[in-house]
């Protein structure tokens, strides 16, 4: 049971968060950090600074010393100028949501953000945080862009929605922290955790087609073709790449086209999550080998195909199988 101050603090924080959400409404891409949604408060360092300046003003009056007093006033003024600069360091930035990179349970899901700075003033040390946890810090050049990333590690498969994150900065003097709360519409998927390797996919009807006479057909090198995203890494002709001729993929003639059908029913005695994990493992492995596959699930299925888009579709089907969304 948390202590009373803790509970009060948390209640206050939740209240503030609700108020901010009500005040701002949901955010739509692109999100511009306009003036009235940037909040600013002194940091502990800033409070110490204020105390120091107070003591200096008092001392200057006590000793009737105008130079000391002037120095104290210069520091007081410096603090206020720094406050404006901290606020200005955030103001006017634009955030765009990139495609989130889904991942398996236990792996980090990456929510990419494109931060653009339309102004002629470089922005230093922009922090991105999930709750209290600092996720990444970036600098955005003048009239330029930079990428930030928020990572979430899901512990359950399904839809993972990034509900709220914080953009903040303490630059230049660290005396103030300006921040904006963002409520994006930003979801990604947590795919099932892949099972251990070992279980081979069962031979399904039509599981293997085409020539499969010469076993592993990777021997007969037939030539190179340009790399396309999604090609298995181990087929890349690294030697060619090293010679500076660009990324190419080795092609083999006569290699057997092995195809699979990964079927829910073939894993009959296993519980639901174990089946999904196993199917996930097969999908990932088949994709890595570059073999076409189909997925059969109760009430759903993905037809035979290959490539990254196909893999995404299959993994999404697995992630969302009888699942409700999770929230971050």
């Amino acid at each position, binding site marked *: 049971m948390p202590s009373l101050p803790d509970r009060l603090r948390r209640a206050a924080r939740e209240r503030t968060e609700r108020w901010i959400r009500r005040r701002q409404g949901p955010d739509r891409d692109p999100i511009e950090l306009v003036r009235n949604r940037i909040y600013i408060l002194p940091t502990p*360092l800033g409070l*110490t*600074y204020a105390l*120091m300046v107070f003591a*200096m*003003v*008092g*001392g*200057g*009056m*006590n*000793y*009737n*010393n*105008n*130079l*000391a*007093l*002037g*120095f*104290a*006033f*210069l*520091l*007081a*003024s*410096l603090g*206020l*100028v*720094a406050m*404006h*600069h901290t*606020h*200005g360091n955030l*103001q*006017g930035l634009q955030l*765009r949501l990139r495609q989130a990179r889904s991942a398996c349970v236990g792996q980090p899901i990456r929510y990419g953000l*494109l931060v653009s700075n*339309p*102004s*002629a*003033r470089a922005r*230093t*040390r922009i922090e991105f945080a999930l709750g209290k946890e600092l996720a990444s*810090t970036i*600098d955005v050049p003048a*009239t330029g862009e930079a990428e930030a990333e928020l990572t979430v590690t899901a512990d359950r498969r399904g839809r993972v929605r990034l509900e709220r994150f914080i953009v903040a900065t*303490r*630059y*230049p*003097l*660290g005396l103030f922290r300006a921040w904006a709360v963002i409520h994006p519409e930003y979801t990604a998927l947590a795919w099932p955790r892949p099972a251990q390797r070992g279980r081979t996919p069962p031979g399904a009807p039509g599981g293997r087609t085409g020539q499969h006479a010469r076993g592993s057909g990777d021997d007969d090198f037939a030539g190179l073709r340009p790399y396309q995203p999604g090609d298995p890494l181990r087929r890349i002709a690294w030697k060619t790449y090293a010679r500076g001729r660009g990324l190419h993929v080795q092609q083999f003639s006569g290699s057997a086209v092995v195809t699979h059908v990964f079927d829910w029913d073939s894993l009959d005695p296993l519980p639901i999550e174990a089946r999904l994990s196993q199917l996930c493992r097969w999908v990932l492995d088949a994709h890595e080998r570059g073999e076409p596959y189909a997925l059969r699930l109760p009430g759903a299925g993905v037809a035979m195909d290959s490539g990254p888009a196909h893999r995404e579709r299959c993994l999404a089907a697995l992630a969302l199988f009888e699942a409700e969304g999770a929230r971050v």
Partner: protein
Amino acid sequence: MSERAALLPALGWVLLALGVATLPHVPHLPVWVTALLLAAGAWRWLAQTQRWPLAPRWLRTVVVAAATLAVLFTYQTVNGVQAGTALLVLMAALKLLETRAPRDLSVLVFIAWFLAYASFLRNQTLSQLPLLMASALLTTAALIRVHSGRSVPQPRELARGSGQLLLQAVPLALVLFLLFPRLPGPFWGLETSSSARTGLDDEMSPGDVSELTLSDEVAFRVRFAATPPPPQQRYWRGPVLGETDGRRWRHARGSAYPPQPVQGLGAPVDYQITLEPHSRRWVFALDMPAQWESTAATLAYDYTLLAGKPVTEVTAWQLQSYPRYVAGAELPPSLRTAMLALPAAANPRAVALGRELATRNADPLAAVRAMLRMFREQSFEYTLQPPKVGSNPTDEFLFTTRQGFCEHYAAAFTVVMRAAGVPARVVTGYQGGEYNPYGGYFIVRQSDAHAWSEIWLAGRGWVRVDPTAAVAPERVNRGLVRALPADESAPGRLRESNRLWGSVTLGWDLINDFWNERVVRFDTRAQLQLLERLGVRNPDWRALGYALAACFAAFFLALTAWLAWQNRPPRLDPAARWHGKVLRRLRSRGIERQPGEGPIAVLERAAETAPDLAEELLEIRDLYAALRYGPASDGATAMRLRMRVRGLRP
């Protein structure tokens, strides 16, 4: 380890800021404190560059305990500027031993700020201004560096960033300085400053004044309301020395003689005297002071004007004096006895000379003239470097060496007068002063320090007699440098001989005077005067508050506007501007530019999505392409593009 690597560039800046802030304290600090800071700084720097491990915890604990004890032992206190500074420097040294995170560096920057502040408490002359600026620039740069993290700004960028912040801070700082209500301190005890300052003392041995005159420091500045009195009337009265042991002259302390009134003759002189701090109570008023701020100063029985408390800050006094006067027409018997007292065994020949003068001259004034004639006509020399004299200094000076500075002449004259039965005493102070034509005021320096005599004559009271004037009239009329032999070095000789250098020093003094008058002495009264000059009738603290609030608001608005202007998007060329306008208009048709979509492509896509606009959009595309990528932008194309965009009605 990576954390420490990230600290590296900031550490250099912090050490630099700390060093500059400590520098002015070094002469006042015990050597071991400075040494400890240097050692800690060097060690921390090497720990960073050589990847040494940080100090173990037990070592830090031992050093903290030892240092605190040592400060307590040295100063017997941890309060006050002296002990406080030593403690701050030690804290900085100890913090360096355990600096591992950016927060520790911030603490060090705070210590540097406090150190700079402490040095202003110690001394607020104009010479501190460069330190203030350097300190502010470096500490701010260091703090920016601490908070710019991984991105490594160039030193020049840092300096510019820091300079920009400070420049923007200056207006509000000025406003605060001018308008922030001053509470008259002190609220808590001020330590009595133990630091010795150059200046007159209430004791005088042969050689003291001549040593003092080697200093070129300003003692005070004087502004006369009307015509300044001639040099032979410019005697600035300091401590009066009435007791002697034969060698040394002392101010008679604790004697309660009834004060005798001063009666002015002729026209009084009004003037303002601005004293540099000298830690004593003397207000060096012109002979004889007649009017002063009665609450702040008192006139002693020997006509020395005394401030209510030691002068530790620059203070100004509005005074009125009578150059011609009758002071102390009556001489109380106890004072008469004291002013005739001579030690029994000392200076027998001088005493004999005095008695002889008394028997030969019935009129004391005739004795005075005879004595002065002796100085003038016999081979007496006026020099800053007289030979050393022994236990009977007056005898040796009068009859053997015959070389002396003003204190020798004043002391000898007073001894002889007392022996002749004329009540006499030594008066120290300053004489003359250099006129600064740029500022219209007189500068009186330590090198103008002087000693003369005062004798009491029935019916005329205390009369000033300057035996130096008999030997070296130039000293009184034209200053020390003109009075000394040409081969003798003296302060101000270069000023005197090189006219350009003379002008430079006078100009510099004018700036210092301005600093004293306008900055150091700025107070509540000056604040209210300022408001009055700005048109506020009968200003009070409430008016100060309103003015302050108004300035704050204006400052915040200006800063916000400046930042908004800084944050504005850069101005686009006309083609891009009109293209943007097209995109904004297309938004109503649900056409948005996709990330990564080129300017031409989006127009083409729009033409496909909205066939009714296709013709116009494609023409806009062509015009845009021509303007943007064509050989030379011409006005006609820009005009057509503008018309097309304006005509676009989605």
